[in-house]
């Protein structure tokens, strides 16, 4: 029987779902292999149970927690889709600003004062803290990156179809940089997060003339101390290093500490 798959989203740009819709060449093939039961971005149907749930976005509010827990109870396998779901992505940087300040910045001083004294004030804003999914529910697999990489999505789907789990080797972006024969950006007197970042994106940013900013999250074995020393050698101030780590890695322990 075809596995039932469903897509859900929380705070995100929804680009990861779009990345999958963007696999035009194979979209119809995929739909032959699975039964798509929920995909709010492209369809109106809803379903009570699914085999695989792809969840995009980070968790911010109490109501998000309720909803992701509900998804977890309905699905056999839960995949964190994209950087927001895997590690909080860019918005995790807002964790470094107190919620009241966030409101004040966006909605004015008055809002700041009220949000602090009136718990019922604009409950939708009950912004707690930007968290990746696995801080709230168990996650079975991670499709990293901002946006997610279609090839990894395919590997995941074909693995599950065959009754096994996907495997994403914990190798640095540098590996793919070498396979693409890129000149290392350090060679060009620029700095890169690649050595501590989980590869799998084919080093696409370096391939296209940029550096790696680390959207796929830190490797489990990342040698952060060495990376900070390396950045300092390139005369990057500690403050700038911290800010750099807080671009995409705001939720990683390192970004809090550097």
């Amino acid at each position, binding site marked *: 029987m075809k596995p039932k798959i469903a897509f859900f*989203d*929380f*705070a*995100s*740009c*929804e*680009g*990861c*779902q*779009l*990345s999958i*819709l*963007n696999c*035009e*060449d194979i*979209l*119809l093939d995929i*739909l032959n292999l699975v039964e*798509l039961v929920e*995909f*709010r*971005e*492209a*369809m*109106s*149907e809803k379903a009570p149970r699914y085999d695989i749930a792809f969840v995009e*976005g980070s968790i*911010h*509010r109490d109501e*998000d927690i309720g909803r992701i827990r509900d998804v977890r109870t309905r699905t056999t396998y839960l995949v964190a889709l994209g950087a927001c779901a895997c590690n909080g*992505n*860019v*918005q995790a*940087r*807002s964790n*470094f*600003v107190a919620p009241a*300040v*966030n409101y004040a*910045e*966006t*909605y004015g001083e008055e809002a700041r004062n009220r949000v602090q004294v009136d718990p019922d004030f*604009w409950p*939708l*804003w009950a*912004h707690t803290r*930007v968290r990746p999914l696995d801080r709230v529910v168990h996650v079975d697999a991670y499709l990293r990156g*901002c*946006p997610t990489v279609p090839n990894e999505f395919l590997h995941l789907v074909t693995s599950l179809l065959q009754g096994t789990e996907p495997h994403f080797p914990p190798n640095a972006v540098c590996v793919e940089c070498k396979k693409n024969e890129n000149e290392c950006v350090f060679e060009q007197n620029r700095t890169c997060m690649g050595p501590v970042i989980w590869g799998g994106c084919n080093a*696409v*940013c370096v*391939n*296209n*003339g*940029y550096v790696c*900013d680390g959207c796929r999250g830190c490797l489990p074995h990342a040698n952060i101390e060495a990376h900070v020393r390396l950045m300092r050698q390139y005369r990057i101030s500690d403050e*700038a290093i911290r*800010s750099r780590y807080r*671009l995409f890695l705001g939720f990683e322990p390192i970004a809090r500490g550097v």
Partner: protein
Amino acid sequence: MDGANQTFSIDVNHITRVEGHGRIKINTRDGVVEEVRLCITEANRFFENFVKGMQPEEIPWIVSRICGICCVGHQMTATKAVEAALAIEPSEQTVLLRKMLTESQFIQSHVLHVYFLAVPDFMGAMSVLPLAKSHPEVVKRALRLKKLANDYTAVLGGRMLHPMSNTLKGFRKLPERHDLEQTLDRLRAAVPDLEETVRIAQTLKMPDYERETEYVSLKHPDEYALYDGEIFSSDTQTTVPVDHYLDVTNEFTVEHSTSKWSKWHRESYFVGALARFNNNFDMLLPQAKQAAADLGLRAPCYNPYKNTLAQVVETVHCTHNSIHMLEQILQYDLTEEDLGFTFRPGRGIGSCEVPRGILFHDYTFDQSGACSKANAIIPTSQNINNIERDMRAFVPQMLPGMSQEELKLKMEMLLRAYDPCISCAVHMLEVEFVG
């Protein structure tokens, strides 16, 4: 059962086939509409807040994450704003490449909206999936056009979403000549698919509702304004400079909304494809004008459902305009540019049209070299006010002859016609229809 003399409440939570989370609530008592509300339930990601402290070149790259489907638009607008702040003048070559990048995303976003999000409504389908079986040729054409547009974006930007090639002053990596040539060939070959798209759009039966409002878009003396121009109002028929955008958007908070709303010369205004079409019809390429004629779309048009048709017209325009731009750029070799610049503190404002309407970004940099203040006003948050007013106007008109289900569908369709991108609405908003 029609809605006359009925007491009911409709609550559509998690509206489907729109980007982001929204909710429509309608309450009627004895056939009288008591309340119509549109709530946006998307969690705020506080972009304006957390970009503070970032380096100038980081900003366009990070704020593209506001929205997946509008990522190019956000990146372009932010690039222009930061360049304005730093007094960076991009070269002609850069501007041309950026215009192509912009139009590539118009094609992809409009094709996605028309085929995946809107057409199923008209064909009575819950989604595009059943159409893959019943109308495979339609779905295959949609995928073909979308793929072309996506590949076009990737050729220029490095990848389809959150492209990294464009940066302040220019491109980190220039597109390969070979890829540009191939894109040109493919765009030319796509013309029949476009004609077919127009033909399908002709068959869509648009609900017959009109409400005249203020239409706001960029306007440019030489071209159909997408990348550049000044802010134009259909009410005054004049433009104001982009730097005065705050006078246009006049954001205000309303009791039932967590977002700021916008209004200019009247209670609400419309941004997006229909506004551009109404305001800049003359600048459309002949092929696009022809498409409009084929669709029976005449400027000015006051039926918001026809925003979808205006998107079809713009798709035709962008494709033909891209063909012209590619022909132009292929006449000379692209040159690597020095992307170095000297920093200066200051404030800069940028505006572009994105598929869903006019977009503003505003950044200030202090002496430290980092961003100290940021603001972004997104088309969808400008439109929400207008959408709710459309709903309030249409629901009483529709009620007498319509079942609850139909009414619900028509409201969803109306919302979808605006192609709202709620993820973009970094300004939070809540519109409730409770009775």
